[in-house]
């Protein structure tokens, strides 16, 4: 009697374990866990769509100071895309990153304004024609185009064995995420189609994640990767900007610098003022004589 009861308990227990394993293996099947996500945009694809051998610009750029600058993310996608492909980075994130870059260059004497250009103003493979439209619309002279290339890898380590239990998938960091981001800002004089200078920024974010939170953590890592790359981009942009100023000073034939009309001031008392003073003096002279 007792033996039959204990064997019933044992059979029940084995059934439960089998059921748990079945459910667990259904949710978290072992596939080696490797995953790669890539998102990128290209300045060359945007500016020279379908051109294998673009012609170099022939005119010397003329920069009229202070400059009105536009800054935008290059839309991802090629000439065949009618709308920008999903870039993996939200518009709000893009806008915040561009604003960070813009804030660093505001208040400089040779920069009158920096406009953040919304992504909707640029179309994939829009080329210089698209930039000319934006130039007319926003009244800018120079544009800084920001392109990026972000790759995310997810690998599983030995802790991922714990995913066979449901709790382990929540607790143990059996995934290793690696996010590598490269950003590049290229600054173009729109009328002359001249590349003035460029600056890169890169970052690498590595972090562990439990299976359930892998996607959530990858999104956070992506944002952090862009953020860190932007910080480096800003530093490099400042250096490149100074180098560019030196280059302009040392080789004036490379870029022509002009000052915009209306920013020149003259100290003048003027003819009417002198005449008014002379008239006053005459009144005083007559008053003294009387």
């Amino acid at each position, binding site marked *: 009697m007792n033996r039959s009861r204990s064997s019933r308990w044992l059979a029940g227990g084995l059934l439960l374990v089998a059921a748990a394993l079945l459910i667990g293996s259904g949710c978290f099947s072992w596939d080696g866990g490797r995953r790669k996500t890539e998102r990128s945009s290209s300045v060359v694809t945007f500016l020279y769509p379908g051109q294998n051998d673009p012609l170099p610009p022939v005119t010397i750029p003329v920069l009229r*100071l*202070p400059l009105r600058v536009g800054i935008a993310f290059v839309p991802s996608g090629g000439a065949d895309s009618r709308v920008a492909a999903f870039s993996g980075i939200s518009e709000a994130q893009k806008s915040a990153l561009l604003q960070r870059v813009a804030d660093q260059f505001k*208040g400089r*004497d*040779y920069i009158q304004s920096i406009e953040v250009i919304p992504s909707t103003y640029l179309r994939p493979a829009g080329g210089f024609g698209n930039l000319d439209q934006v130039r007319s619309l926003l009244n800018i002279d120079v544009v800084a185009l920001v392109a990026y290339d972000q790759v995310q890898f997810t690998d599983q380590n030995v802790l991922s064995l714990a995913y066979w239990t449901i709790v382990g998938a929540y607790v143990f960091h059996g995934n290793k995420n690696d996010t590598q981001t490269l950003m590049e800002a290229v600054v173009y004089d729109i009328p002359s189609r001249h590349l003035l200078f460029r600056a890169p920024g890169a970052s690498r974010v590595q972090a562990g994640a439990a299976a359930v939170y892998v996607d959530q953590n990858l999104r956070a890592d992506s944002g952090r990767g862009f953020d860190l790359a932007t910080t480096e981009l800003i530093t490099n942009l400042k250096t490149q900007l100074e180098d560019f*100023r030196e280059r302009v*000073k040392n080789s004036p034939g490379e870029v022509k610098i002009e*000052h*915009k*009309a*209306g*920013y*020149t*001031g*003259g*100290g*003048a*008392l*003027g*003819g*009417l*003022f*002198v005449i*008014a*003073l002379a008239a*006053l003096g005459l*009144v*005083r002279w007559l*008053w*003294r004589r009387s």
Partner: protein
Amino acid sequence: MAAELKTAGPARGAGVPWATLLVAIPAIALAAWPRAVDVLAYDRLQVLDGQWWRMLTGHWVHFSVSHLLWNLAVLVPAGAWVERLSPRRTRVLFVVAPAVIGGSLLAADPTLLRYAGLSGIAAAVLALLAFTQLSAGHADRWFWRTVLGLLAVKIAAELWLGRPALAHFADSSIRPVPLAHLAGVACAAAVHFTRQLLRRWRARG
């Protein structure tokens, strides 16, 4: 009545107003040099790039001959007169005013890229002459108050309108810079009243 109508007389050491001439003659000479404005005018970007002397030399170059002549028409008579009345203060003003005006333009008007002209210094000299005459306490104080009033109206009108008042530039893209006149008048007031304030302060001490 005749005694009441006297203005302040020449001070000790007053002779030839050489300081005024030292200011006026280089301005006339530089008018003959076509590249003077390019090389010597106040240019904000160049000043920030290390060519600090442009803050000083910018006063001695002009955009046109009429621009120079109208400024000299105020500077030379007013300068010669006040230099006879108060030579030391006038010479101090001629040393201090160019730097103060240039520094004010750099600090307070970042949109002003280029500036040229003696008018800031001329306004300073005219204001110093008026302050000196008013301090003498003679009967024609109304005249000097009116001169200061005219200067104040010109500065206020240019600040308010953003275009030249009682003046005209051949090149319409050149804007007036009332800040230069304001800084000049403030400089003249400082030079004129500092000595009096120091005396009072010492007397109290």
